[in-house]
């Protein structure tokens, strides 16, 4: 009753008050802002600039408020900002539904939510938005660095959540908690990743823009369209050959075939599709696996020319191999090619006529040259030889930066500028052949590829994009002629860098002095490839294979579910054991005392919970069943413990002495 009257003041009518809104501390805000910035920043490369700008202005504003310790802006201002953001997104994308506007809205919402955050519940919503934003990043990029960044952002998000429940903890503790949770979450992640049933294909229709923005080969060709790819080292596909890879001059990966020409642009002609190839394969075979990056087109870029395989791909009448659906995710296809096969031995007349057609009124000088070359030739072979010889003589220069051409592009290239990239060479050659009456067309695709010495894969990049020609000769069918090789033969054998003339600025990676950098890149790409194959390429097919190897019946959902549940429970049990295992008390004195009590308890002398050390000692001293010496020793230890525990000092020597005496106790 120490309180006295003052504590007994009569305070009637004390009403219950609602718990006050808990405002965020500075540390909580900092965690939130860090998480938001980490989640938002990687979108910088592809989200429209103004959206990123807006998002970061909002974050900066919040940081400023935090710095000044002022209150969030009034709701009306926020409402106005929300409306402005919605209108902005609407104007940018013309609609709200779809991947890109969705992600843009998400980014803006996060900024606005952070600005509005007052209580922990809002803050949790903001963290969830951050997680969504991290997920949306994977639409664009799933490479190792992005995964690493997402891991860091997740860690920060978890630490932010920890700081929301524990406002008084230090930042280091929150970080430790977050890290611990991530570390403990990883086994569950691996388990679920491997065993969670994978489903093929989309569950519902994807928005139209789901796979927009892929660069790469297109199905038309005009001057400059392929050279634009020349500087991109983005990987198009990787080929893993069962045997040795083909010779460089056989590495023609076939894409769209372009027959129709309007004077400037080449376009494909309608073609038939069938389940079997339109040719008979012959000669040596090459077995390989293509891992194709998504390009949102159907062509599979098989090595010329593919044979029918176990997979249900489609063959076209212009000898491409097509997938049934556009390639929207990284796929692996197992293929067989026979590079020495003849194709199109019996071509129909309409196709040949289309391959001879030229738009009237273009390139008069080329037409005149064609007449000159064709004069007196007995066969198409002779004409072909003459055209090749003529092109070889005309000293055309292969360059990544060809000058712009006017209406009569072929004339200008052949007679004036004489500088061009592969599309100029192929275009000029094809026009020249057609003008002499020989059926000719352009094939686009990729040529070459470099072997990665780390994993032995052949890597083909956008810079390997190429255009070449095919001429149709009686009895030989469509014969590949690469006009680029006539002027720059090293393009075919040694790649782009070797073929470019001295002094031409090379893309940095192609520079000879960057050998070490290229080595680094090869190493990195081998790791990326393993990542792509093992992690990103883990699909229903792979899962089935793995489960079969583990001896699990992959057809039965019970087996899979049971395994998943069992392994999950086992993991949880392990964690539980780790959690509740007895930890040694931090205090050495306490440790010694507990050891002492446990030892006595084994001899039937149990210290009750209410007994202090002194009282316990007195009781033991009265136990007649023990020898008097032991009784005295126990009593003394109890007294010493009480003195050290509750007395003013407890030196290391005291501790050691007590421990020695505890160890010396011998009971019958």
């Amino acid at each position, binding site marked *: *009753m120490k*309180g006295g009257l003052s504590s*007994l003041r009569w305070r*009637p009518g004390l009403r219950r008050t609602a718990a006050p809104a808990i405002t965020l501390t500075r540390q909580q805000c900092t965690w939130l802002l860090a998480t938001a910035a980490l989640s938002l920043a990687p979108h910088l490369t592809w989200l429209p600039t103004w959206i990123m700008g807006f998002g970061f202005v909002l974050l900066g504003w919040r940081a400023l408020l935090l710095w000044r310790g002022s209150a969030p802006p009034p709701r009306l201002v926020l409402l106005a900002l929300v409306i402005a953001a919605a209108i902005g997104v609407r104007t940018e994308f013309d609609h709200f539904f779809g991947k890109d506007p969705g992600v843009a809205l998400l980014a803006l919402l996060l900024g606005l939510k952070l600005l509005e955050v007052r209580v922990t519940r809002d803050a949790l919503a903001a963290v969830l938005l951050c*997680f969504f934003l991290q997920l949306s990043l994977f639409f664009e990029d799933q490479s190792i660095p992005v995964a690493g960044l997402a891991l860091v952002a997740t860690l920060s998000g978890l630490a932010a959540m*920890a700081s929301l429940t524990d406002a008084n903890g230090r930042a280091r503790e929150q970080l430790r908690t977050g890290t611990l*949770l*991530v570390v403990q979450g990883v086994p569950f*992640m691996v388990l679920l990743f491997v065993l969670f049933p994978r489903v093929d294909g989309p569950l519902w229709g994807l928005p139209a823009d789901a796979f927009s923005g892929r660069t790469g080969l297109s199905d038309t060709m005009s001057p400059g369209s392929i050279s634009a790819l020349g500087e991109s080292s983005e990987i198009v596909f990787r080929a893993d050959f069962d045997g040795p890879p083909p010779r460089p001059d056989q590495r023609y990966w076939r894409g769209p075939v372009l027959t129709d020409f309007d004077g400037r642009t080449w376009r494909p002609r309608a073609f038939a599709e069938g389940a079997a190839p339109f040719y008979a394969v012959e000669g040596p075979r090459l077995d390989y696996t293509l891992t194709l990056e998504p390009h949102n087109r159907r062509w599979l870029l098989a090595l010329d020319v593919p044979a029918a395989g176990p997979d249900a791909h489609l063959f076209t009448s212009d000898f491409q191999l097509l997938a049934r659906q556009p390639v929207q995710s990284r796929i692996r296809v197992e293929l067989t090619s026979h590079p020495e096969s003849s194709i199109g031995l019996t071509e129909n007349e309409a196709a040949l006529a289309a391959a001879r057609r030229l738009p009237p009124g273009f390139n008069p000088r080329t037409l005149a040259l064609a007449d000159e070359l064709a004069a007196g030739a007995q066969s198409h072979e002779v004409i072909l030889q003459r055209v090749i010889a003529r092109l070889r003589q005309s000293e055309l220069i292969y360059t990544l930066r060809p000058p712009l051409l006017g209406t009569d592009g072929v004339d200008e290239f052949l007679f004036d500028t004489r500088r061009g990239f592969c599309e100029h060479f192929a275009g000029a050659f094809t026009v020249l052949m057609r003008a002499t009456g020989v059926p000719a067309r352009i094939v686009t695709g990729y040529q070459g590829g470099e072997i990665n010495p780390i994993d032995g894969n052949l890597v083909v990049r956008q810079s390997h994009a190429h255009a070449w020609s095919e001429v149709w000769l009686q009895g030989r069918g469509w014969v590949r002629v690469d006009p680029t090789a006539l002027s720059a033969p090293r393009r075919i054998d040694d790649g782009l860098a070797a073929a470019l003339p001295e002094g031409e600025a090379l893309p940095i990676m192609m520079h000879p002095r960057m050998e070490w950098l290229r080595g680094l890149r090869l190493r990195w790409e081998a790791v990326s490839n393993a990542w792509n194959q093992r992690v990103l390429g883990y699909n229903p097919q792979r899962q089935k294979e793995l489960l079969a190897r583990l001896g699990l019946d992959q057809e039965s959902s019970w087996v899979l579910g049971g395994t998943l549940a069992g392994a999950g429970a086992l993991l*949880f049990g392990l964690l539980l054991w780790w959690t509740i295992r007895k930890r040694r008390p931090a205090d050495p004195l306490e440790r010694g005392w507990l050891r002492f009590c446990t030892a006595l308890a084994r001899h039937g002398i149990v210290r009750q919970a209410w007994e202090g050390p002194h009282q316990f000692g007195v009781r033991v001293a009265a136990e007649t069943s023990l020898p008097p010496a032991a009784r005295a020793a126990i009593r003394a230890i109890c007294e010493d413990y009480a003195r050290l525990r509750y007395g003013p000092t407890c030196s290391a020597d005291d501790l050691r002495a007590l421990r020695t005496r505890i160890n010396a106790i011998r009971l019958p």
Partner: protein
Amino acid sequence: MATSASTAAVDPPRSALRRQLDRWLFRLGAPERGPIELVQRRIYVLPSRAGLVFAVALVVMLLASINYSLSLGYGLVFLLAGAGVASILHAFHNLLGLRLRPGRCEPVFCGETASFGLVVENPRAARRPALSLRLGTRHTRFELAPGETRDVQVPAATHRRGLTQPGRMVLETYWPLGLIRAWSVFVPDMPCVVYPAPEATPPPLPPDGEAEGRGRATSRPGDDDFAGLRAHQRADSPRHVAWKVLARGGPLLTKQFSGEAGADLDLAWERLPAHLDTEARLSRLAAWLLAAERSGRRYALRLPMVVCPPGHGHEHLHRCLRELALHGSARQENDR
């Protein structure tokens, strides 16, 4: 059962179902006297509302990952799910091994907010963040440093006089992610004495000696009537110094006053007007006790069963008030 006629719980189970649940699931029964250690089977975990929202968000993210075949999306979702599962154990571990025992609980007047104290001991050499002790709708947040023992007070409104038990108390934590609530339910035995609410406008104190009819010599000092001068003592109030005497060059003297009539006050149950019911009588007596204590006079309390002899001071006041609070209840040997 330690409950008596006037022992009430602050948070009584409201429905039969809840009582059954308490008994079967949480194994709650009579208030526990001794220290309570939170062992495995006393701690319960369930997802909080935020946890459910989190789960829904993960499902949405998983659907997006399936639809767009995002391998890393699966990875992110499963990692977050794994962290959520691990947080169950962290929440559980945050309560595991705590030791609780009843603490201080100051008496209050009915209608005031009582404060139940629970001594929580953290035997572990690690910090226990974000704990909350809940009683009814009120709760107190706290945290424990490594090895710390803390007296946690949780407020509760009082509605009736007598011994009040806090009833069902909950120690809970949402740490670390706020997705999982780990809690332990217990009924500690820590009765709080609730005095009857003093009457708001009580009539003046009864004149002394009314009942017994014998006025006693006025010897108790008071401050109503001037009774004379005495030599100044160091502790005397400066207001009572006879400044006029001092100004006249006399010695430092203190003015003495006598109490109202000098007799001990006798606050008796049976002398209260007959129309008052029990609670009204107790209220009036409580108000009078306070007034009597303020007046500085000695006072006695006479209840039908109990008599408190005349006395003065806080100890005496509390003893009297306590008798009022316990009036009509079966007395127990073990109440404090």
